[in-house]
């Protein structure tokens, strides 16, 4: 089943390169089949526990190990479903938006990279997956043509630097312990200078790739320059890959003393990202940059949850961390598709073009507002669920008033940047005229993930239970 999830997008991408004419159809087909298989994987893992394979049938240590636990299978499901949705959106708009033919194979290979990353439990294999992800993402950004080349090149160079830092850390660990498998490494782990240096180096590289504050500066330019479906994929999924590896490292490998030492730093970075990313989102005049800065801010929640998890070792924080990742992925895909649709139809990149959008494009605006509700954390949305888990965890620890206060402030900040758009959209005095009659289908496609993130609360009980016990 895991093999199918890996082979299908790969073979699909190869066929797309050979016959570009059928590429959209093939993308839809592989994404649809993979979604069904992923759904099956989720149900099987939740029934029978996690699945493990040692690739190529060699003994443990020599072989690369793959593991599908409930978290990995959920993330795979999220990847395939968002891939399907974005592919549908791209099919619905590619004539209008002149999306390059390169989009189809690249997005399939991106799906392969993500799936391989969620499954892998081997430090070097994770590096290869990171590389795959980074290069696919850069190639996708550069699809927008000349104006995207500079942000794409910046992204490429920083991403390569991040990969090299990670690789150097892996080499140091391999030199010290002689194994690459994470579970085998965890058994022999010792907290000394060498392992700390390797961890710091890998963390540096991964934070750069995941655009965690203060290493986020490349993200707004790159995500804003990409075509709308690409930005949706990048913001929703690609930045979560390095975050996943970061969690693997700190939760499974690092010794308690190392984790305790690093925890305040993660919490601080998370809070700073929330605060400064929120302020930047509030100030930027461009629509897509606003959404991109909101990604920087929202990743702060995940970093904060990771820091608190390392500090207090409370399973609620693990649930909060992954709920943030799931809710943010769905909400951000909806935001980028909705904003992309509105800016394409109303003809302008600035936020001012959205003036009166509630009248001219009510459906897309509704999608944005609904997704924004989850970004703020309004009940009963996925974002609320995550924030509730975080607050509950903090409450149970007691005496964490400073964190509680900070969370209130950043929630108000995220409400401010979402309502800035909504208020503008309801300013119906002189609405911006659309360049052409708004298309209905893409707007509905933008609305779907927004509705899905609110539907997450319907499954809050099993989700919380799964993620709490898993927590990596």
């Amino acid at each position, binding site marked *: 089943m*895991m*093999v199918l999830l890996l*082979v299908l997008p*790969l*073979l699909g991408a*190869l066929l797309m*390169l*050979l016959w*570009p*004419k059928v*590429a959209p159809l093939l993308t839809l087909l592989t994404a649809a089949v993979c979604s069904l298989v992923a759904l099956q994987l989720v149900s099987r893992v939740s029934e029978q526990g996690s699945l493990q*394979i*040692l*690739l*190529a*049938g*060699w*003994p443990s*240590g*020599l*072989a*690369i190990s793959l593991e599908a636990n409930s978290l990995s299978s959920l993330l795979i499901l999220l990847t395939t479903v968002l891939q399907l949705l974005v592919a549908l959106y791209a099919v619905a708009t*590619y*004539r209008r938006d*002149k*999306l*390059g*033919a*390169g989009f189809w*194979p*690249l997005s399939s*290979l991106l799906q*392969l*990279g993500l799936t*391989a990353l969620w499954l892998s439990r081997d430090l*070097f*294999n994770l590096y*290869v*997956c990171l*590389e*795959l992800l980074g*290069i*696919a993402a*850069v*190639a996708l950004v*550069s*699809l927008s043509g000349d104006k995207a*080349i500079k942000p794409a090149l910046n992204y490429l160079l920083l991403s390569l630097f991040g990969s090299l830092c990670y690789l*150097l850390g892996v080499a*140091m660990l391999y*030199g*010290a312990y*002689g*194994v690459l498998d994470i579970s085998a490494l965890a058994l022999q782990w010792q907290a*000394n*200078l*060498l392992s700390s*240096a*390797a961890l*710091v180096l890998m963390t540096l590289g991964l934070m750069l790739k995941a655009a965690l504050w203060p290493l986020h500066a490349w993200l707004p330019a790159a995500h804003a320059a990409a075509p709308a479906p690409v930005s949706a994929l990048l913001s929703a999924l690609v930045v979560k890959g390095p975050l996943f590896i970061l969690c693997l490292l700190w939760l499974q490998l690092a010794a308690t003393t190392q984790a305790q030492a690093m925890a305040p730093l993660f919490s601080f970075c998370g809070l700073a990202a929330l605060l400064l990313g929120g302020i930047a989102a509030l100030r930027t005049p461009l629509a897509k940059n606003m959404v991109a800065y909101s990604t920087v801010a929202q990743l702060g929640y995940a970093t904060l949850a990771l820091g608190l998890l390392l500090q207090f070792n409370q399973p609620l924080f693990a649930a909060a961390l992954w709920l943030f990742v799931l809710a943010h992925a769905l909400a951000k895909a909806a935001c980028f598709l909705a904003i992309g649709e509105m800016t394409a139809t109303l003809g302008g990149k600035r936020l001012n073009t959205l003036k009166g959008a509630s009248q001219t494009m009510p459906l897309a605006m509704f999608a944005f507002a609904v997704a924004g509700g989850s970004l703020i954390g309004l009940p009963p949305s996925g974002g609320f669920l995550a924030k509730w888990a975080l607050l509950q965890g903090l409450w149970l620890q007691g005496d964490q008033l400073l964190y509680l206060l900070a969370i209130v402030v950043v929630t108000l900040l995220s409400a401010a940047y979402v309502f800035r758009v909504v208020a503008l959209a309801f300013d119906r005095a002189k609405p911006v005229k659309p360049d052409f009659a708004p298309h209905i289908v893409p707007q509905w496609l933008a609305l779907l993930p927004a509705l899905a993130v609110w539907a997450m609360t319907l499954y809050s009980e099993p989700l919380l239970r799964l993620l709490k016990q898993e927590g990596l």
Partner: protein
Amino acid sequence: MSLLLFDTALCLLLLALALASMLSRQLVNAVMLYIAFGLMMALAWARLAAPDLALAEAAIGAGLTGALCFSALARQQLDITAAALSWPQRLWPATFVVLMLGGILAALLQLPSVASPLVAVAQAELINSGVSHPVTAVLLNFRSWDTLLELVVLLLALLGALPVAPAEKSATSWSLGLSWSRLLAPMVILLAGYLLWAGASQPGGAFQAGVLLAAGAVVLRLNQQLNWLSWCNFWVRLLVVAGIAVFVLVALLALWLTPANVDAVWLSWPPLLAGGIILLIEVFATLAIASTLTLLVVGEPAPQHNRTESV
């Protein structure tokens, strides 16, 4: 004693070449120094008893990367000089690098000098892997999933570079270059074939052979020989994806042919057929790597008509 002298000189030379390449004002000079650095690096790998890496470094670091850099330089409008940086602008990255290097070196001094426990396991399993050279066994049997994904990374690099390649400047070939490249071509093919075949038992293998083949193809292409070698050509595209496609298809076939009483495992080769399977994969991987790298260096722009008709 003399070897120690050689090593010290090599290390100093490497540092000097790296610094000179970075600080050089003229990009052309920087690229040339970088190529020299690649050659010295290959020597260093050879001294460290890693002949596989030395071969790869000589072919890629010194050969192909240099060609890539020159072809990128040739597409610039004018011979640009790197903008002069002020001292504070240089100081910050330098401090960062020195601090990081210091930390890493301090950590590396603590490395234990015991060999990895995996080496013994790999040596013990070598007889079941189908090849007798441990590097090839790791690349194409023990950790073949990594190699497959690396081939995808190479393909992605090509896919990313194709749409942004600027228009090719018309260049006339030089008659001496033309005859020289014709003379070189059969030897390159022969040598690549030898490297590929030798990979089973000694240093060599698909990557080195592919790069060598690519170098030959680039020389020919620059002399207006292999004009059919372009992304629009269906057969070239087939060649580029053949490496990955054969890899996956063979793995699927092996999965399908597994006897019912054995657990089917992805990418596991039956021990008796492993040698043949690895050679088959390597042949197609060599061709794919060669064509991918050639297309990367030649870097023709994506034709507009093809893009519009295919969307």
